[in-house]
């Protein structure tokens, strides 16, 4: 089913999304990939160290504040764009392989991250964190970077400029096409759809 959704994405929204739904996302999306995630984790570790004696609640509050973007109900797009030509907000901008962020994703999901856009399989621990937090994993079409860039209306640098193509960006997107792959009930389109079309050899 085709659905239009607007960020930030709440549990109200994710509870109605099912694996296989075709969605058009509009609003703010944050871009981060491997190197940026590694820095997120370092920032979280530091916040945890500073507030651990004040209890779990304080740790979580400090940690959410330690990230360079508001993580509550946020969407992260796993992507590293090519440079923008003059007069354009961004260059080619398709998804990168999500599994490289699997190590980091559960921690962000537990802090309130609601959606991830990427491509490719996720581990069981990410799947569990998606269910636990009523989140969602979307796939965008890999290798359609030129097409997807047309849905990006604005791109601002958030931080980690020194990482080049891996810097954290804040995007404004309009009708960005994606498919729900893992929904909050743990349905996984990569498994069900492939089974549906697999034939005897």
């Amino acid at each position, binding site marked *: 089913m085709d659905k239009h959704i607007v960020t930030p994405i709440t549990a109200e929204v994710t509870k109605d999304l099912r694996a296989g739904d075709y969605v058009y996302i509009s609003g703010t999306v944050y871009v981060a990939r491997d190197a940026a995630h590694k820095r997120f984790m370092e920032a979280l570790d530091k916040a945890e160290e500073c507030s651990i004696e004040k209890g779990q609640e304080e740790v979580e509050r400090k940690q959410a504040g330690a990230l360079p973007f508001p993580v509550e109900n946020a969407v992260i797009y796993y992507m590293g764009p090519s440079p923008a030509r003059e007069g354009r907000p961004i*260059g*080619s*901008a*398709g998804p990168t392989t999500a599994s490289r962020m699997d190590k980091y994703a559960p921690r962000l999901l537990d802090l309130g991250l609601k959606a991830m856009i990427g491509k490719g399989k996720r581990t069981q621990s990410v799947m569990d964190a998606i269910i636990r937090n009523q989140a969602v994993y979307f796939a965008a079409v890999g290798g359609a970077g030129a097409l997807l860039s047309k849905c990006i209306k604005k791109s601002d640098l958030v931080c980690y400029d020194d990482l080049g193509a891996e810097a954290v960006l804040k995007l404004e997107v309009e009708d960005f096409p994606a498919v729900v*792959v893992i929904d909050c009930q743990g349905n996984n389109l990569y498994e069900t759809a492939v089974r549906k079309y697999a034939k*005897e050899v």
Partner: protein
Amino acid sequence: MIRTIKTEEVTKNIREMCIEANHYLSRDMDKALKNAVESEEAPLGKKILCQLQENLTIAAEELIPVCQDTGMAVVFAEIGQEVHFEGILLEEAINEGVRQGYTEGFLRKSVVKDPILRENTKDNTPAVIHYSVTEGDKLKLTLAPKGFGSENMSRIFMLKPADGIEGVKNAILTAVKDAGPNACPPVVVGVGIGGTFEKCALLAKQALTRAADEHSKIAYVKEMEEEMLYKINRLGIGPGGLGGTTTALAVNINTYPTHIAGLPVAVNICCHVNRHVVRVL
């Protein structure tokens, strides 16, 4: 007769080839995608294939790279043995072309200087260059920028002679199955059989630069290419890995003599953004 080629010509051509490869796919890939749109059975799969075609149009018309991962530049330099180079070292000339192409062409710089320390070189150099010496007085350059979503899913299998052709087929199917959605299907599968450990990997990479609609000249290899394409497309993975009957657009297999005790097989997977540009100087 010795023929002189100025290495600045090499730089200029490599520069242009980097930009060309990343904005326009070769005709054979175009055609393979077009055929796939017609034969795909899954509605979502068809939709994705149409988007990939639209993506190619936008890339060419608006000069936006086909994919944001503009790859690590792989260069095959086939040097006629009557060629004499004049100017800077050939290797430097190639890298200078990559440097200029990637910076001036707004392509992504995805190369790190050291695999462990991981500092970006900021100009996408160095290229991975494979030299060979051939007859004649020409220089044939093949540039194939390689994205790593699919490179990461590539495999080498050191099979035993007793595993035979069935073992090879299983290895190919296993690699494609394990790659699943990660390699941005529909994929092109480059296979190298024989040689040594490193030779079979190189054969597989070379196989990816062969046109998608061109078969091996060896009868049993051609048959295997067709059979593997058929079987891979029955795995169900489909466009984007979201289910369907188009998982691969082509299977290209290259072979080489090998040792009595071995059967090396390399499976180099490439996404549908299978970029390769050839120029002869």
